[in-house]
């Protein structure tokens, strides 16, 4: 039996107090302190940059590339991504980072047809990561390099571009 001095309420209060102390310690050491430091380090960054830098999928390099896209394209641009996997294939996230630009995932087998259907002056094919350049880039598309050595960057399509020779005309 619980004695008169040690009532259930007093005992419960002590248990809850211990629980609070444990949680304050865990919260401070696991969350408040590390997140506080990260946020302080990024205090001068814009909201979308902090999203990229603090998200587990983008990090500094990809956030920097997204910044490049934002700076090189107008807000009404159409951006075509051809990646089949990874963060650059996740349309909803790309829409968030590149808002209000239109994001098109062109991952069909027939990339040429997909790209042609979006032809226009404000349309860009995005080549975000090193590797073979996207197929079906129309003749006369202008290449805007991000990192020349990796051949990453943007291909700006033109409404008058021919597309007979994918990749031809690209510098």
């Amino acid at each position, binding site marked *: 039996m619980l004695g008169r001095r040690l009532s259930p309420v007093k005992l*419960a209060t002590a248990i809850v107090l211990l629980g609070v102390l*444990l949680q304050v310690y865990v919260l401070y050491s696991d969350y408040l302190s590390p997140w506080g430091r990260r946020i302080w380090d990024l205090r001068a960054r814009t909201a979308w940059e902090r999203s990229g830098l603090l998200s587990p999928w983008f990090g500094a390099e990809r956030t920097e590339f997204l910044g490049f896209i934002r700076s090189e394209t107008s807000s009404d641009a159409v951006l075509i991504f051809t990646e089949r996997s990874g963060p650059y294939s996740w349309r909803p996230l790309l829409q968030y980072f590149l808002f209000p630009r239109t994001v098109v995932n062109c991952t069909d087998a027939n990339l040429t047809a997909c790209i042609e259907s979006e032809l226009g002056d404000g349309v860009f094919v995005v080549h975000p990561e090193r590797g073979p350049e996207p197929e079906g880039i129309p003749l006369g598309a202008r290449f805007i390099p991000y990192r020349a050595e990796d051949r990453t960057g943007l291909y700006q399509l033109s409404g008058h571009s021919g597309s007979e020779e994918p990749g031809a005309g690209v510098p």
Partner: protein
Amino acid sequence: MIASLLVGLAVVVALSVFGVQLARAILGRSTWLELLGLAYPLGSGVLTWLLFLLSWIGLRMTALSVAATAAFALAGATWAAEVRRKLILQSASDSRRGIREDTGGTSARVGLGLAFAVLMLAALVISVGRSYAAYDAMAGWALKGYGIAAGGSVLAGRDWGMWGLNYPLNIMLQVATFRLFGGDLLPESKLLFPLYLASVCLGIFLFWRRFRVAPALAALGLMLIATNPVVFIHATNGYANLPFAAVLTLGVLTGIDGVASHDQPRQFLSGLLLGIGVWTRPEGILYAAPIAAALVAIARIGRKGKVFPLALLSPLLGLSIPWLLFAGTHYELDPVWIQQGDTAVLAITNLLKGISAGGARLSTLYLIVRLFLERALLPENWGAYLPVVALLFALSAFARRTWARREILYLVAVSVITIVLPVALYLVLSIHGLPDFVLVLRRDFDRAYLPAYFMTNVLAITLLQPRTHDQDPSAPRRPGSQSGMSAGSEEAHLDEVGRVWG
């Protein structure tokens, strides 16, 4: 930066003032602390629902139209609150006295206020500071709000982010409102998430005090809830689960209080909050319907209080039906969205199919419970939740007349509902044979459990009342009473609660 913050704070204040006036119009008289707890969830929920209806019938959403809607709504609520105030006779218990009695002594008030304020300030800073950096927050809640703001219509939300128009738009329209007024450059819309935590903590604290939980235990219980790692993280990560759990919990507690004290306006407010829950998450109706049914059934069959079904159900149905009609009209099930996390809608869509197919295997039930227990026992996830709640339940066996009290049966019923529902939803989800079901479970079950987390904490601490008034000298008293409430005057206490708070 400063300008964006000021615009964001102005939006918060405007929505909160609307919520205060709504609560005053419904309740008549209340305490400022209770109004503060209800202000933001109530004001934002009702305003976004009005914006949704207006947009659905074709009104373009712009900063001007949103401001005009808010101004009309605020004027209407203020007028109704004044009319209501004049209808109520003044009693000896003014609101300030009620608060003093309800929060314990001066040191408890100051200590609680400071600790809680610091914690909420930290949540606000981290929430805004980390921006939208979690998947659903970016690809769902924020983006769709931006899309609606840019397109000037709720229908524009379909083209942006995940889920099409399957998910309720409460949070998205709040984000859209912040975007329309200040551009959401900070993003100031992330102020809204910690506000729900603050609101539900205040609501739970006041419920405890209303039902005679000792001040120190109630204050520490509040801090226990607010400092839980999972809860705190969800107050800062931009997901809708915490706002949903908060609104649902506020609705439940207001409802129990209303039924126990035979208070019709309070039951109306409960229905309104449950309706806002339906308007916040797709599984909302699955929670609100059985909870409302449980309140009515226990009051009627168990003769525990008095329920006014029309008062309780009319706002719940009034808010739910238009949304459910809209969702039914625009419903889509896209495999890509499911892959990207639209699991709630998938589970709900196939609920009947899962039940008719005989449900999922018992081994899956074991898996769900085992994984949750594993996570719950690690302090970095659920803090001290499981051990503390288990010990409090054990201690309640020594408390006086614990299980005979009328509020307990309601709390038990709602706790069971909130525990069973997420388990049932994940059981149904398991029949789809998602290749990464265990991963989904580890990642998502915690947030689905948030309503149960609040309710089990509320139950565990409500079970532990002081034995006599002497152990709780600050418990609410009858107006004019010098000696306070006697140990055996529970009925009288509830009647008094109804009057002071009604």
